[in-house]
């Protein structure tokens, strides 16, 4: 018999035990709020954007071990990334960075991706009219997505 049996990978457990970036950002540039109580997972993701780059990210999550670990991982992955690159982070990438998730937990990584996208969309929507001020310039590659919201 193995000494220790665990539902999750070591990496998931490590992020679960010591989640990074827990909390809220004061005056965030974008907030993503996803999930619903019926499924038992609710994620809130806050981002701070400077020069079109995510300079800080924090989260608050009500959910299972995988939900907490994916929240923690996604905030780590986006920090320092330009908006365009951050939008390309897929749920699979989050799961892979965690050393994989049990199949029934993959939805948690989807939630993490959606939380991030939702925070970025919130940021872009708030900054639609500010393209010309330079500081928070909207990236061309997501323009079509955001114009609809303006």
């Amino acid at each position, binding site marked *: 018999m193995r000494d220790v049996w665990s*539902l*999750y990978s070591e990496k998931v*457990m490590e992020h*679960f*035990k010591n*989640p990074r970036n*827990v*909390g*809220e950002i004061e005056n965030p540039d974008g907030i993503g*709020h996803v999930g619903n*109580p*019926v*499924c*038992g*997972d*609710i*994620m*809130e993701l806050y981002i701070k954007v400077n020069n079109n780059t995510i300079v800080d990210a924090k*989260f*608050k*999550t*009500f*959910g*299972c*071990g*995988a*939900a*907490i670990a994916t929240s923690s991982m996604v905030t780590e992955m986006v920090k320092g990334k330009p908006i365009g690159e951050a939008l390309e982070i897929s749920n699979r990438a989050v799961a892979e960075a965690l050393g994989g998730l049990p199949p*029934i*937990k993959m*939805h948690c990584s989807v939630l993490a991706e959606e939380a991030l996208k939702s925070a970025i969309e919130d940021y872009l929507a708030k900054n639609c009219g500010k393209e010309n001020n330079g500081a928070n310039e909207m990236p061309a590659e997501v323009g079509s997505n955001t114009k609809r919201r303006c």
Partner: protein
Amino acid sequence: MRRIYLDYTATTPTHPEVVKAMLPYFTDAFGNASTIYSYGQEAKGAIEEARDKVADLIGAQSEEIVFTSGGTEADNFALEGVAFAKESKGNHIITSSVEHHAVIETCKFLERRGFRVTYLPVDEYGLVAPDDVKRAITDKTILISVMQANNEVGTMEPIAEIGKIAKEAGIYFHTDAVQTVGHIPVDVNELRVDLLSMSAHKLYGPKGVGALYIRKGTKLIPFMHGGEQERRRRASTENVPGIVGFGKATELAQHEMAEEAERLVYLRDQLTEGLLERIDYTRLNGHPIKRLPNNANISVDFVEGESMLLNLDLEGICASTGSACSSSSLEPSHVLRALGLSPEQAHGSLRFSLGKWTTEEEIGRVLEVLPKIVVKLRAMSPLLKSHR
């Protein structure tokens, strides 16, 4: 790290004396009980001895006990067996909304086969109202099935009262007694049940064996076909070591039950009261008094059950939750929802079930560890903020 097991409702360790009683039937006394030579008769004798012990524990006659592969099979057998035997008389079944999946899913299967099922609601404690049973009876009703004690919240249903109603109406009455047999006194005549499901591994017996009590004269279709075993009601070569173990477990339970129940009630109350006192925004789920001696089920607001379980596991403590984050449906426990808990509260539930080897020291350890875990998880919960 020393592990603290508080999930005796999920399963119990097999009692060492039970294992000892079983061992000869794997090797020396390995015979097939259907054979006429000494090996076979030796096995047959052991089965009948076990049957006597199981029957004795629930006030039944030996020939009213049919051994099965477990509680789930006993439930399936009772429901399908009666439904298909009584099909020509009626197609209506009454059950409750807090049954084990072994009953609920069997009912759903029967619904797909043309039967009609009434799922009775429960009150905030999980109690079925006998009057609701009475009102649900129609001239097509062929079976009533209500569990004796709920596996999740521990609530004890008014079985004797429902039994009286069923008897007066001439309708078969089944109870899933998987959580009660061997833990509290169960008497099939006092309860007025016609069918009663049991499982060995919930009372320090082995896994893979259970039984269905079938009152003499009750008509039901055999569950397995292909042999003469169990008076033709359940074909298949008997699981002799398992049955012997079940018998031994019921014998031990008979002697230890009363004292053990008292000890567990004391520890259970210490745990529940201690947790409610130490952690704010918590509640007890299930009935405060009419509950299993070993069941402590609480809801902790703003945090999710699996994340609490994982943190407890990191401290060596094994418990259970009604949160369904780990099931594919993602829906929280149907039992907690039937009690009226919100999805958040159901996801934030924890079940501790105590047993023979639970100590006061272990309860103390949970009381020390869980409040810290809740503080940690609440600090990252978006629900706490929106509440404030």
